[in-house]
């Protein structure tokens, strides 16, 4: 059976906040085929590399399928009794604030709703926070300050209609590839549309941009204050809209007091940007983590919002500030009250009227009156033993929180830790006292909200394995076992959704934005078939944009202009730690890689953690391409591969955030991120830590391939999945006594036949293990960073490969090079060769010749960069 007779199921991609519709079809063997849903408004059929590879991530290997208590298999009844009784006892002994939930933008709205209800309405604490704190909190705070609610004013259609799109702190090409593709398509249709990128780093999003402003890290407020001052100076303030605004003078005074020189940008570029922005009515300013993850993140958001508000460029087709979210249901979490300082349905915890209304609706026995602990503070409280019972759901704070080592230690030291996840193989899950097996994306049913307020259904396409359960069910069961049977008598996501929609009607009655009460009577059948729809959905308003009418959600209906001043990142580079550390996402990985690392083609894009470092800095420090480097500060040390590139400015380093104790234990970059937070939003400053950097002088370097997974014992290692098994980079500080036994131990191959090459005096050792003429594993050791054709070698395990130890393709067979196009596995050398020999000159021609970039298109910026590189070389010759 190939699954072709199975129905295609409409669902939503579980990665970024674009919220693309996907069509899933089981293959009859537990796998899925995935394609973009042409009917979904978010993506209209497009998918990025990650979405296209979803089918490779749904296998059952590595799944947690039974509850574990203290590492031993248990049953749900015992495990849930233990969770419920421990929570109850902890509350009884230490009060409700001694327990906390740390949840995730990976949760569906229904899961999120039940978790929030359990904590805020029944346990009686507000100690529920979500990993959206690391991602969206500054935007939430900025929106609330300006609008009175956390409202995204515009829609994705604005990107199609804008005449100028400004990307601020957003590598849209990699982090929201489908939106970026949409943007590029719009520019192609309307070439007059301009694109400006504001980012200290030259990212893939800069390819094809009209202007890239590589401002000094953290100086966004100075830039937008400069813009605001220019708007005023050029008389571009919208007089008709101004009556709807409050605080204009103070904001302007503050803006004028700031000095755009703080951006480090030359006046000509600044002037060009200001003129372009001011002169273009239809302007969308897209912002993301570069804005949010900052000690002044909320101020940055308001600096942007100020400019849109004073020009009235908000809520109208083709214009507005636009926050793009990082997670599939970050928005749902915000709506449902997943943040410690929110109630539910955009109601305020600290507002007694709101609180009472919700309390009454829930028949809640206990409601907190104050905001709970935000993520960073929450884990501080764990470290201080003020939190004695902690339930972590679908997130990996031991890796992702700032000062991650301290967080890991805190979790380890907590009296009672429950972790719900789809796998036990995460840094956090390994610390759990109780590990609860959850259904995974393809097995779950519920709703998610994307960056433009579109609520989409996620539908189960695969049967849940083993004893896995949906999170809403687990949470409700704990609620029932804690004595609240009636309040948590949920039988289906639809039932939860109806309750949630009904509650939103109360919010609507308070005049809040989030009102989907029009769906509160939705039948199970209609819920099942519910098409994507943008909130609000109420008697008074359905979908559309907000604020063009000047009606905001503060009591006086006016928007607030916030007087903000530029403030540099909390820690400035100094002699001891002269580098500013930026962190972020890669194109083909997601968060801590629990899903994307399962996909060979996604893993091929960047199979190893790295630090981007400017060539001048590298030269000064004696660091060569492919050396390992150690980054350190007082919090710890990280070891990754050097990637020397002028995409980063001198004095700056970029390290991706994805690697963990499971994939590269020395590359847990958040161990170097200080727990500095924005005073308003509580969001950590994840992109501006200070570090020193030096060459990591390993005694030996290694590269390994195997048909099976393995976990090296070495000072440095990074593993990645391949189509034929696993590949790994390694480095160590001392030679083992005997490489053969070390390698046999590494691969777990005590008896396989060995082929070896040794050049003892040079420290070169190459070992291949075979069985029945098939290569099982190979290890390449050298005193220098290992020079072999990695992508080729990674294809060999499982095949007859007698010359594998040569480390290269057979002579006369070209090396495809690092994979650029994940969808079709096209390597960089292949593309460069095609450019050179066939004289290809644009991305489409390369697509026609090699198929590269013709599926998801996520690699098109990289192909464009290769073309630019090739033509630059040609010009130089």
């Amino acid at each position, binding site marked *: 059976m190939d699954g072709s007779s199975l129905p295609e199921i409409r669902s939503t991609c579980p990665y970024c906040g674009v919220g693309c519709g996907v069509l899933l079809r089981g293959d009859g063997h537990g796998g899925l085929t995935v394609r973009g849903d042409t009917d979904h408004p978010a993506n209209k059929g497009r998918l990025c590399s990650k979405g296209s590879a979803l089918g490779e991530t749904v296998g059952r290997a590595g799944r947690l399928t039974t509850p574990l208590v203290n590492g031993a298999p248990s049953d749900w009844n015992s495990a849930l009794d233990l969770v419920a009784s421990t929570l109850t006892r902890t509350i009884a002994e230490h009060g409700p604030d001694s327990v906390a939930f740390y949840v995730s933008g990976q949760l569906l709205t229904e899961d999120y709703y039940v978790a929030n209800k359990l904590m805020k309405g029944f346990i009686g604490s507000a100690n529920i926070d979500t990993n959206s704190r690391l991602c969206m909190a500054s935007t939430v705070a900025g929106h609330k300050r300006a609008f009175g609610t956390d409202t995204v004013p515009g829609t994705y259609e604005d990107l199609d209609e804008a005449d100028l799109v400004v990307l601020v702190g957003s590598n849209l090409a990699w982090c929201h590839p489908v939106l970026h593709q949409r943007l590029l398509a719009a520019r192609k249709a309307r070439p007059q549309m301009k694109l400006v990128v504001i980012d200290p780093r030259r990212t893939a999003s800069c390819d094809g941009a009209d202007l890239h402003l590589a401002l000094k890290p953290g100086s966004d407020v100075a830039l937008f204050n400069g813009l605001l001052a220019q708007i005023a100076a050029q008389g571009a303030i919208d007089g008709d809209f101004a009556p709807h605004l409050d605080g204009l003078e103070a904001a302007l005074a503050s803006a004028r007091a700031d000095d755009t020189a703080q951006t480090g940008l030359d006046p000509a570029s600044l002037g060009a940007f200001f003129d372009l922005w001011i002169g273009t009515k239809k302007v969308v300013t897209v912002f993301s983590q570069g804005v949010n993850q900052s000690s002044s993140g909320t101020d940055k958001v308001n600096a942007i919002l100020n400019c849109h508000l004073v020009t009235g460029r908000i809520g109208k087709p083709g214009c507005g500030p636009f926050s793009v979210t990082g997670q599939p249901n970050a928005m749902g979490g915000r709506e449902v009250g997943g943040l410690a300082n929110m109630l539910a349905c955009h109601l305020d915890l600290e507002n007694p009227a709101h609180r009472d209304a919700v309390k009454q609706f829930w028949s809640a026995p206990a409601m907190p009156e104050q905001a709970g602990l935000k993520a960073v503070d929450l884990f501080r409280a764990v470290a201080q033993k003020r939190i004695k019972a902690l339930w972590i759901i679908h997130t990996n704070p031991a890796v992702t929180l700032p000062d991650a080592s301290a967080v890991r230690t805190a979790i380890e030291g907590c009296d009672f830790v429950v972790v719900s996840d789809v796998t036990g193989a995460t840094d956090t899950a390994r610390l759990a006292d109780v590990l609860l097996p959850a259904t995974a994306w393809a097995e779950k049913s519920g709703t998610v909200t994307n960056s433009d307020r579109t609520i989409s259904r996620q539908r189960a396409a695969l049967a849940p394995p083993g004893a896995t359960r949906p999170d809403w069910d687990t949470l409700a069961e704990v609620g029932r076992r804690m004595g609240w049977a009636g309040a948590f008598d949920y039988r289906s996501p639809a039932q939860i959704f109806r309750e949630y929609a009904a509650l939103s009607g109360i919010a609507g009655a308070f005049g809040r934005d989030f009102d989907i009460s029009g769906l509160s009577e939705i039948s199970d059948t209609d819920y099942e078939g519910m098409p994507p729809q943008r909130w609000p959905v109420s008697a008074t308003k359905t979908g559309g944009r907000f604020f063009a009418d000047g009606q905001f959600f503060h009591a006086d209906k006016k928007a607030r202009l916030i007087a903000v001043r530029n403030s540099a990142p909390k820690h400035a580079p100094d002699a001891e730690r002269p580098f500013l550390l930026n962190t972020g996402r890669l194109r083909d990985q997601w968060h801590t890689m629990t899903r994307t690392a399962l996909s060979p083609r996604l893993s091929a894009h960047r199979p190893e953690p790295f630090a981007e470092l400017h060539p001048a800095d590298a030269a000064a420090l004696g660091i060569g391409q492919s050396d390992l480097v150690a980054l350190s500060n007082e919090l710890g040390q990280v070891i990754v591969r050097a990637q020397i590139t002028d995409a980063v400015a001198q004095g700056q380093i970029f390290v991706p955030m994805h690697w963990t104790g499971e994939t590269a234990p020395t590359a847990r970059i958040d161990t170097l991120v200080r727990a500095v937070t924005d005073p308003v939003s509580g969001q950590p400053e994840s992109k501006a830590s200070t570090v020193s950097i030096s060459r990591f002088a390993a005694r030996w370097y290694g590269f390994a391939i195997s048909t099976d997974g393995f976990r090296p014992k070495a000072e440095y290692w990074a593993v990645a999945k391949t189509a034929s098994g696993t590949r790994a980079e390694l480095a160590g500080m001392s030679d083992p006594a005997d490489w053969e036994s070390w390698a046999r131990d590494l691969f777990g191959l005590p008896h396989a036949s060995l082929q070896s090459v040794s*050049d003892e005096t040079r420290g070169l050792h190459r070992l291949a293990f075979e069985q029945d003429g098939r290569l099982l594993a190979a290890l390449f050791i050298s005193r220098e960073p290992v020079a072999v054709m990695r992508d080729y070698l990674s294809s060999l395990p499982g095949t007859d490969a007698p010359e594998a130890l040569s480390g290269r393709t057979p002579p006369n067979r070209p090396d495809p090079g690092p994979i650029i196009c994940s969808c079709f596995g096209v390597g960089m050398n292949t593309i460069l060769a095609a450019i050179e020999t066939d004289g290809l000159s644009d991305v489409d021609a390369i697509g026609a010749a090699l198929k590269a970039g013709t599926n998801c298109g996520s690699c098109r910026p990289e192909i464009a960069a290769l073309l630019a590189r090739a033509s630059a070389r040609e010009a130089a010759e």
Partner: protein
Amino acid sequence: MRQKLVIVGAGMAAGRLLDRLSAAPARYDITLVNAEPRGSYNRIMLSPVLAGDKAFADIVTHDEAWYRAQGITCQFGQRVDTLDRDGKLVTLSDGTALPYDRLVLATGSMPFMPPLPGIGLAGVISYRDLEDTRTMMDLRAGQRAVVLGGGLLGLEAAAGMAARGIKVSVVHLNTHLMERQLDAEASALLRTELEARGINIHCGAQSQSIVGSDGRVQALRLEDGRDLPCDLLVIATGIRPSVALAQSAGLTTARGVTVDDRMTTSDPAILAIGECTEHRGQTFGLVAPVFDQADVAARILAGQEATFTPREISAKLKVTGCDLFSAGDFDGGRDTETIVLRDPARSRYRRLVLRDNRIIGIVLYGDTSDGPWFFDLMKARADVSLMRDALIFGQAYAAASRHGMAA
């Protein structure tokens, strides 16, 4: 007036010399004397003849028609009885007297026969010429043979007989076979391969005596008292240069006939080439330097200048399916570095010994296709540092990776 040139011996050295001389304007009347009743054949190809891979006709390099065409007078089946240097005259075993102006000694070598009791028994032979080969070929399948000596020649004899269904044992004094050409690891692979062909190998075995009955060999007795029964005992314990004629004529000899760089003996009218010679203290057993000597001698005889420089030599075992290649100093030692490829699953082994990033020793077992390339690098003293990572994988891989590879 043409000069008279007498060549004593029609082995491979003499064959090569004649090839080279015939290419030059004829200035000599040549007489070729040979104890074997035939002209030159490729002696190193006797093993394939023994193994049945080739016929004798295939390995003849110079037949009667060729000698006739070249106008060479052949005296085959004749030994030289006396050499009168003063009278410039050689006398053959049948009494024929041959005056000469120039004389070339190419008398080759004799097998070394160890002084074991019973060495003179019938059925105890060496492995030197076609007659020895035929003796081995005359054994019937199922008969037993012992080969004393596990060097290149002994193993070729053993493998050749084994291929004919003879039950063969090899007795070798050293702890591993072919120790002059192979390191212990390659040798072990070779041993495994030979044993797989049914050959019994006794290494580290000291022979005590040859047991016989009615004047015919019955067994080789070892020091430990074991008897290895056999119908034929082949002695392959090395060769000694044939110097008897030279000595009797008063030429300077040491282990071999002493020659200078111009292949000239202590008598300016007499040259010597091949396995009978000793040059700067070195004797010769492999074909490549012997050919070089013949080339030098040809030029000297043609009145040109030439000097012989001993070159690096390589060795191959001519046993089908047992490919090995050996050259230089493969034992290593001070200041040397070793690159080793071990691939027992494919019976493949490669060892390169380097000094200062230059190859000084090569041992290849299994796949010897890159032997000549490594050997060329060795002879050229080429610096291999830029291709060192892939060097052991041979020419194609190393050359390809010389262009560099990004990590």
